[in-house]
């Protein structure tokens, strides 16, 4: 076991010498130079001779019947090449990640504010926008179904989707539900076993991924009747799977190439402009580019599910948990997207990284006329963590225990069981993560003699010179699964080619992995160097010419596609050594590859790869499947449902202006077990970025929806943390290998986003004494709420 602290300037020391490192080093990104030169081609930078610009007409109403659509005036606008409605769709009119319930263009009704109704292609983006305004739609506006009470009473308020409209919708306005019972469940008898019981109602607002690169891409019609799409996405193959039936093309004629991706965070897991651009390209026979403006981006992708949660925890006087009961209601909005899987995560992870003898859980996702919700970093585990960690603090206060100690009395370790009955069969150092977070040095107290307003709540608004500022400290820990769960085989494919180029052995790695900024391409090159003993590695553009790499989500890409690269590279290595054995008759049992040579550990270099390979290339493709999982039982929630678990602990230090309700996060510490840091620089970058999105959810970020209408679809009104809002984020990494995972690694990206939010809220409670049962915490909560 090793632990290391990586923060600040220390990172800079190891960078230059490690430029050609294998795994465990921090070589620089292969796309870094292009990105800083402004030459990296993002999806919105795509350009083609004679290309047209596409845009969509979107519904101003969250729920309405479409009585008529008149496109005639739009078609007359000079420069317009096509105006399409659902009637122009050649194939299936519906698509969806898990349930095909979403029309590619609205058919007779709209179910959310911003739903696409018609498309325009024109020779200038402004011409397209103006033509959209000429499309006349007659609506019969209906009262939207937006609250939990309305959704659960379809007899009174109606259905978002008519009953049995699709096979999977037998539940009315419940999109998916999952129950879970373990131990004795939670009954009056079980409650009687507890000395203290605390309960609470918690609410989480709708968060947006707010990636900076807007949804965009270029569709180019091909001579074979197929289509080539250059697009920013998280999963090329699942896009294609959804697109081909709508375009009425066989999958092999829908060819996708990954264009540069400006961040994703779950928001590119669903289809956005892919089908629309292809429909316009098919119809006009010309290349069509679509680039969302920021407001359209807010309407055009799914968000994090808002949640309402009720938690009840019972414990003995000495702080041991006896039972936990929970109900989580997630608003899935108009279409299913990833809601079923999000519910599965909320139910199975919703009691946190704690050993609890008796558990009950009921998680549901609703259909409503609110914006659709689906994948966002943390995926169902984020909402629950705010609930259970708030409960831990409440319980500690009730028992007069230190909040960290109370947690440590109940944290799970390797060998313990999840409420699903799944045994934790790799390291789970939850108590240790908390201990380390607590032992990190605290930032100095506010120096009132040398105040700099930029460090205070309100910062450059100059709202305080130190008066009314109270400091608070809070802790939290969280759990997240890695990889797709519940029986899903989200395998990855990698192709590795080894050949001599310019007198040097060069490895080429070809996968369909979506590099969205996380640094997967860096890691793939590191793996190839380590396995093949070469320095030169090239990364082939990601496309659908190679098998699926699964999604860049669920903290899974290094585990899954990294694992596939490892398998393919190992196969190439074996083939090369076998070639040498055949040619030279080697009998050594200790042959490996290093420094561009085939070497024997005892006898030294046997032959250079250049000589052994000659003109031949070794080119092999392998699939990597994780160990199988099973679906959770619908009623009991039992089952070996997850591939791997990952944990992060945080400490937040905040200064609160208690008069104005302003919060400055002073420091946000993270301690995480990553199994093995394949690229420590990138790992720390992931953890710091994940913490910052959690900070956003804690105190800033919410899509405001009133009666189904989005009120803040812009970066002027939807605020994400700036560099002034973001504190130093010291990170401590543990490397406790998971024997089931490639190199022992553990997925990194999401755990800090799950765990960090509650630590910030705990710190604000610590400073103010307020209950704060809703996030994001807004100034008015701090100035008008009653003490908790």
């Amino acid at each position, binding site marked *: 076991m090793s632990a290391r602290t990586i923060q600040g300037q220390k990172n800079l020391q190891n960078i230059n010498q490690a430029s050609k490192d294998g795994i465990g080093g921090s070589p620089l990104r292969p796309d870094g130079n292009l990105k*800083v030169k402004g030459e990296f081609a993002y999806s919105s930078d795509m350009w083609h001779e004679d290309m047209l610009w596409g845009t969509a007409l979107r519904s101003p109403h969250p729920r309405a019947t479409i009585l008529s659509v008149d496109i005639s005036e739009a078609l007359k606008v000079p420069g317009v090449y096509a105006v399409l409605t659902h009637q122009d769709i050649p194939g299936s009119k519906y698509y969806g990640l898990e349930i095909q319930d979403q029309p590619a263009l609205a058919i007779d009704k709209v179910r959310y504010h911003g739903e696409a109704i018609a498309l325009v292609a024109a020779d200038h983006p402004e011409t397209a926008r103006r033509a959209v305004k000429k499309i006349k739609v007659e609506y019969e506006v209906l009262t939207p179904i937006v609250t939990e009470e309305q959704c659960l009473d379809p007899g009174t308020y109606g259905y978002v989707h008519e009953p049995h409209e699709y096979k999977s919708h037998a539940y009315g306005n419940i999109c998916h539900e999952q129950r879970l019972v373990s131990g004795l469940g939670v009954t009056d008898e079980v409650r009687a076993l507890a000395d203290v019981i605390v309960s609470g109602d918690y609410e989480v607002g709708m968060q947006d991924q*707010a990636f*900076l690169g807007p949804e965009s891409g270029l569709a180019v019609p091909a001579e074979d009747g197929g289509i080539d799409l250059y697009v920013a996405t998280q999963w090329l193959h699942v896009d294609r799977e959804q697109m081909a039936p709508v375009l009425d093309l066989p999958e092999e004629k829908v060819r996708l190439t990954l264009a540069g991706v400006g*961040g994703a965070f779950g928001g590119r897991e669903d289809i956005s402009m892919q089908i629309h651009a292809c429909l316009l390209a098919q119809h006009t026979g010309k290349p069509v580019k679509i680039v969302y403006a920021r407001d359209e981006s807010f309407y055009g992708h799914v968000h994090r599910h808002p949640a309402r949660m009720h938690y009840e925890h019972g414990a003995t006087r000495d702080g041991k948990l006896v039972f936990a009961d929970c109900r989580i209601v997630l608003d899935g909005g108009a279409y299913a997207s990833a809601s079923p899987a999000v519910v599965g995560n909320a139910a199975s992870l919703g009691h946190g990284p704690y050993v609890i003898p008796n558990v009950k859980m009921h998680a549901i996702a609703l259909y409503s006329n609110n914006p659709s919700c689906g994948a966002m970093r943390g995926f169902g585990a984020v909402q629950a963590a705010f609930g259970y960690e708030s409960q831990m603090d409440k319980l500690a206060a009730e028992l007069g225990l230190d909040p960290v100690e109370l947690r440590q009395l109940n944290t799970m370790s390797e060998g313990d069981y999840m409420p699903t009955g799944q045994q934790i069969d790799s390291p789970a150092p939850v108590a240790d993560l908390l201990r380390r977070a607590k032992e990190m040095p605290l930032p100095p107290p506010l120096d009132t003699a040398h105040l700099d307003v930029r460090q205070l709540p309100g910062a*450059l608004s100059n709202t305080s010179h130190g008066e009314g500022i109270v400091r608070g400290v809070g802790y939290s820990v969280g759990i997240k699964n890695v990889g797709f769960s519940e029986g899903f085989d989200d395998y990855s494919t990698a192709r590795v080619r080894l050949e001599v180029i310019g007198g040097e052995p060069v490895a080429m790695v070809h996968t369909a992995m979506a590099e969205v900024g996380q640094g997967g391409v860096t890691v793939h090159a590191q793996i190839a160097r380590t396995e093949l003993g070469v320095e030169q590695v090239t990364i082939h553009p990601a496309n659908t010419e190679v098998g699926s790499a699964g999604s860049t989500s669920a903290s899974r890409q290094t585990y899954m596609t990294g694992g596939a690269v490892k398998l393919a590279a190992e196969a190439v290595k074996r083939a090369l050594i076998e070639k040498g054995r055949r040619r030279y008759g080697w009998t050594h049992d200790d042959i490996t590859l290093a420094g561009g040579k085939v070497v024997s550990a005892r006898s030294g270099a046997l032959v250079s790869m250049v000589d052994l390979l000659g003109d031949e290339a070794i080119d092999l493709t392998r699939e990597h499947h994780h160990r199988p999982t099973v679906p959770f039982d619908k009623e009991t929630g039992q089952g070996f449902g997850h591939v791997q678990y990952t944990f992060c602990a945080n400490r937040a230090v905040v200064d609160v202006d208690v008069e104005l309700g302003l919060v400055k996060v002073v420091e946000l510490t993270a301690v995480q077990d990553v199994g093995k840091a394949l690229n420590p620089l990138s790992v720390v970058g992931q953890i710091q970025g994940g913490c910052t999105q959690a900070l956003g959810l804690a105190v800033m970020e919410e899509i405001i929806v009133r009666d189904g209408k989005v009120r803040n679809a*812009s970066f002027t009104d939807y605020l994400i943390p700036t*560099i002034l809002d973001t504190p130093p984020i010291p990170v401590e990494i543990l490397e406790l290998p998971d024997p089931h995972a490639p190199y022992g690694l553990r997925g990194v990206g999401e755990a800090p986003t799950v765990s960090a939010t509650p630590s910030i809220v705990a710190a604000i409670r610590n400073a103010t004494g307020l209950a704060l049962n809703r996030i994001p915490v807004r100034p008015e909560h701090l100035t008008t709420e009653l003490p908790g």
Partner: protein
Amino acid sequence: MRVTFTANGKPVEADDVWEGESLLYVLRERVGLPGSKNACEQGECGSCTVYLDGVPVCSCLVAAGQVQDREVRTVEGLTDENGELGLVQQAFVDAGAVQCGFCTPGLLVQTDALLDQDAQPSDNDIREALSGNLCRCTGYEKIMDAVRLASARKCAGKGASE
């Protein structure tokens, strides 16, 4: 309309420009300089930041006609004549300050402008100067590292030449 201006030291000319087009659109779609980025197009995110007559501006907020006969320098212009990375660009790569990279062009121009004004800014100065540039990936820690590194290298370079 026709717009002529200087971009990264070279005269450029854009024809058939619609009056509502921004400098950002003209750079990206008409004169082959797509490095400046289109994340919000309302002056909130800073990813389109360019120098206009030496002053950093959000190019999405500048009407194309306003740049007639003026000088624009973009992220592409931070690279030297031989295509080598400029000091700030190199520091961002070395420090791991680039993930998806969409915010990077704007941050590079803004950092370049900051270090021109003050080669040794304090952490608070850096945070203030970059507070108009949103980044969603990094949590800003590596960006702070990059600016400190660029500052250190700039000061060391000055010391060596003096």
